[in-house]
Each structure stands twice: as C-alpha cells, then as structure tokens.
C-alpha cells in the first residue's frame, strides 16, 4: 500500500467515524430541544422511504418502471401489504422475497 493510499484511508476513516460519533460522544451532556426531539421521530420513516422508493421505481437507477413486470415493485408491494396487515417483519420480508424471485423467474 502506498503512502497516498494510507492517507486516503486514514482520512476517510476519521471523517466517517467523526460524522457517526459526533452526537454519541456527547452522551447525556446534550438534550435536544423538544422541537428537535419531535422532528427526529420522523427520521426513520422519512429516510427508509427515501432509500426504498427510488430503488423500487427506478431499479436501474435511471429508468422509471411502474409496471407489473418490475419484480422490485411487485415484491415491495407484497412486503408492504404483509407488514401492514400482520405486523410481522420476517413474514413480510420472506413473502416479498418469494414473490420477487417468482416474478424474476417468470419473466425469465
């Protein structure tokens, strides 16, 4: 490994860790104002949806595929329906993946 490579990895390690650790470092010494606490409750719903929806509707990263021939879309819909109806995460993932792979297999 070259010196430049070490520098790159050390720098990326430090930056990534500091971004992840900044809030954890403060521990109990920081209490977010009530407004921020309320806002943070929406982070999981917002972030997870923002990650999943483009993956599912634009599986190749650039072309819209809003069609039943898109296994990503069909699989995610089935996952969502099972999760909504039964609130059972493993069943939702298992059911969604089964349908996803069935779709891929049927579409060749």
């Amino acid at each position, binding site marked *: 490994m070259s010196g430049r490579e070490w520098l790159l990895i050390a720098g990326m390690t430090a930056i*990534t860790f500091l971004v992840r650790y900044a809030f954890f*470092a403060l521990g109990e010494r920081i209490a977010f104002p009530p407004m921020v606490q309320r806002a943070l409750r929406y982070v999981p719903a917002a972030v997870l949806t923002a990650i999943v929806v483009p993956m599912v509707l634009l599986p190749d990263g650039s072309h819209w595929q809003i069609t039943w021939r898109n296994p990503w879309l069909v699989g995610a819909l089935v996952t969502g329906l099972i999760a909504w109806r039964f609130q059972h995460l493993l069943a939702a993932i298992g059911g969604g993946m089964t349908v996803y792979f069935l779709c891929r297999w049927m579409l060749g």
Partner: protein
Amino acid sequence: MTQASHPQRRGEFWAGARDSLPMLLGAAPFGLIFGTLATPSGLSPAGALAMSMFVYAGSAQFIALTLLASGTGLAVILLTTFVVNLRHALYSATLLPHVAGLRQRWRIPLAFWLTDETFAVVQHRYLEHDTSPFKHWYYLGSCLSMYSNWILWTLTGVLLGRSVPRLEHLGLEFAMAATFTGIVVPMFRSRPMLGAALGAAAVALAAHALPYKLGLMLAALTGVVIGVLLEDRP
C-alpha cells in the same frame, strides 16, 4: 455471572444478528463488487480490505473508487466522503436518546459500526415497547454480523478478482429493499408519519439524479419538516 454469558444479553445479541440476516444477503453483492473493482480503480488489494475494515461505509467506498479511477485529488475525495456520510449524523442523533446512558466504550464502537442497515433494524428494536435493558446488545449483534459480512465479501471480491461468480445478477439486493419496506410500512398508521414518508419519497424521486446521496439528505429533511407540520394541525 460474567457479562457476555448473561442469557438475556446473549439473546439480544443473537436476535440483532438474526434480524440483520436479510441485509447480509443484500450487502453481499456490493461487498463483492467493491472488492473486484478495487484493483482496476487503482486501489491495492490491501487498501481495499483496509477500507472495508476501517472506513466501513459502502456508498462512500464506492464513490471513492470512482473518484480514484478518474484521478481525483485527495481533498475532494475526503470532502465527498463527508457529504455522502452526513446522513449518519441524522441516524446517530435519532438513536442518541437510547445510547446516551451507555459508557464510552460502548458508544465508540456502536458509532463506528452505524450503517443504514443497522440503523433500520436497531431503531425498530428500540421502538418496541418492552423494557429490556440490553437492547444495546441487539445493536452490537447487528453491527458485528454486518461488519464481518462486509469484510468477508470484500475479501472474496479481492481474491477472486474478475472471475467472480455472478452474485450481482441474482437479485439479492432486493433483500435490503424488502427489509426497509417491512420496517417502514407499519409506521404509516399516523397521518404525520405517512405525510413524512410521502414527502420524502417525492423528493427522493425528484432528486434521485443528484450525486453523493444529496437527494437522500434533502428527502429526509423534507419528510421530517412535513411530519412536524402535520402534527401541529388540529
């Protein structure tokens, strides 16, 4: 009784590892591709492995490879790393109330291992209503399974080089989408949560072409603002 042998701690640890299983599948093709692309992009095999061990951030690692291959300078790569990883600050702020009471020797590794996947399963666990005092062991279980998986697949990619089994064509990445969907959909029962998600989805789609995960940050912030605004209405 020693710490690690406490049955409840062990139970949480393995539950965290087990619940991350679909994400292990989903991450495998990415680890493998990262390993195979490293050398052609100008990173040594040792460098690729070191990056997975120390940086441990999939998106940033891929973007770094692309930038390296195009001859981009160090400063720009580091700045990009910062921007791409900004979303982790949002995750750690969200998880902070649950880990604030832990010692530094817990908070440091749990921060180092915080990824999209671990955030998704761990916040899901923290929101469950039981009062288990060992949920950080669940967090640790998710971390260690994801971390060893990432290193293992990077190593496999580095060793196999171009002659990889066509793992990336199996569609395993869907496992991650399914897990995130299964976790997020039951949250939609309140109007502000649904609004936050719809707003985030709209912005994520509109901004999907933005580089460096900026679309994701923008979408998250929009969703949060919409959620709070809807909450205020009678």
